[in-house]
């Protein structure tokens, strides 16, 4: 039921993004810099997470004119964010023919109980997750790509690491359980048994698993790749740094050569200042973006 032709195409595009870097951009110039630096896709949005955090207010789907301008300027896939539960923003983005929709906790949620039913859409969706249960619930709703949430706009890798480690550990644990134990696990994870059984058998999600939320340096990108991420999303980390062009290139290089310390050293040299970053432990619970989504 999860693997019909439509779903295979959606997850298929995610396969094509593996080993790459998807960069947040707020205009066509940034999109061009990202493409030139070797980004495998861009995420079009109104403000990067660090600015959303600073400026407050309601964060919505980006202006259509801006997304169009970006689509016109680059040949790589263009993604855009819709608010959690806002299936009409998603329908509009689909009509605009964006290549992927991120139902994102970075924007202000439109529904505090329901995510979008993503199955009837032709356009694929990516959703954030902090743990296996959350990831499988999103896949059950039709997400064709999962990314760890991390803490967007923080420039701090600690939450992305926590979420990637959690998902990997929870998947490993399932692989050693018996059939009847999986039924109980499905209840605990609040996820469909069919998907729990898939993970138990394969030791991985039925869709690609990327990382997001706090990646600011080539070393950060390599770290999450080592922990099991198959590609990385970089939000504020690039265009909030001193030299976005060079940093973008360096992070692209790190995502490919995450196993090659010599190449990582080259990527890390002469980078300029990284974004300042936040101590996530000092944020108020209400300031956290990762707790949005259910």
């Amino acid at each position, binding site marked *: 039921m999860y693997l019909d032709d439509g779903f295979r195409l959606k997850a298929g595009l995610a396969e094509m993004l593996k080993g790459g870097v998807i960069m947040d951009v707020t205009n066509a110039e940034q999109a061009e810099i990202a493409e030139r630096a*070797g980004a495998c896709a861009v995420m079009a949005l109104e403000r990067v997470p660090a600015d959303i955090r600073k400026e407050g207010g309601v964060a919505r789907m980006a202006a259509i004119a801006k997304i169009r301008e970006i689509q016109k300027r680059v040949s790589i896939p263009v993604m855009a964010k819709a608010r959690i539960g806002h299936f009409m923003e998603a329908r509009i983005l689909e009509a605009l023919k964006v290549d992927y929709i991120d139902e994102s906790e970075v924007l202000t949620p439109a529904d505090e109980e329901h995510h979008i039913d993503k199955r009837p859409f032709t356009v694929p969706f990516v959703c954030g997750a902090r743990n296996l249960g959350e990831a499988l619930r999103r896949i059950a709703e039709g997400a064709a790509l999962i990314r760890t949430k991390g803490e967007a706009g923080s420039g701090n890798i600690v939450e992305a690491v926590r979420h990637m480690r959690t998902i990997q550990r929870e998947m490993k644990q399932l692989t050693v359980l018996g059939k009847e134990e999986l039924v109980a696990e499905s209840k605990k994870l609040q996820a469909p048994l069919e998907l729990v059984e898939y993970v138990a058998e394969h030791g991985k999600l039925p869709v690609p698993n990327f990382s997001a939320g706090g990646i600011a340096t080539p070393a950060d990108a390599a770290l999450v790749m080592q922990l099991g991420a198959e590609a990385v999303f970089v939000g504020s980390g690039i265009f909030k740094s001193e030299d976005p062009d060079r940093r973008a290139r360096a992070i692209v290089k790190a995502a490919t050569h995450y196993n090659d310390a010599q190449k990582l050293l080259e990527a890390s040299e002469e980078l300029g200042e990284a974004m300042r970053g936040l101590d996530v432990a000092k944020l108020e619970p209400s300031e956290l973006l990762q707790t949005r989504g259910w």
Partner: protein
Amino acid sequence: MKIGVLAVQGDFEAHGRALERLGAVAVYVRVPADLDGLDGLVIPGGESTTMLKFLENEGLFGAISNFAARRPLLGTCAGAILMATVVCRPAQRSLELMDIAIERNAYGRQVDSRIATLSPSSEFAERTAAGPLEAVFIRAPIIRRVGARARVLLEYHGDPVLVEQGPHLAVTFHPELTTDARVHGLFLEKASAK
């Protein structure tokens, strides 16, 4: 048989699995030295602009050109774009191994991606096996012109989708995303020729 899969970006692992199902050893290629001792090389699907950056910046462009003079290459989707003589919309540099002109994202954006069933030509069926072939097109390119040196082995809606030139194969869909092993099988046959 040892087959390299260019692993800078894209669905290289899907190719690795497809090759291993046929009994070949898959070697992931990220630096020029990884090409040593390989019988063939696959350039996978992914973003051709991203891969081209890597080829140009990390010495792989020349290394793969030299390799292709000796051993067979299989390019799928982005890989086919990198192997074409002419790339358009937008124009970009390529390895110029196949006498074809190819247009990027020619079907449209992701919502225009599709899974089609192809009826193989008698030549393809003879060299592999008969029967319909499932073809997954994802933001796929279209081959707009085939020159005298290249030969068409498969078509979809009148457009060439699998082209052969000497030892090399270029395909605009993704055989690595299905369980049909015929395209990879054909490539391994070419790679086993010494």
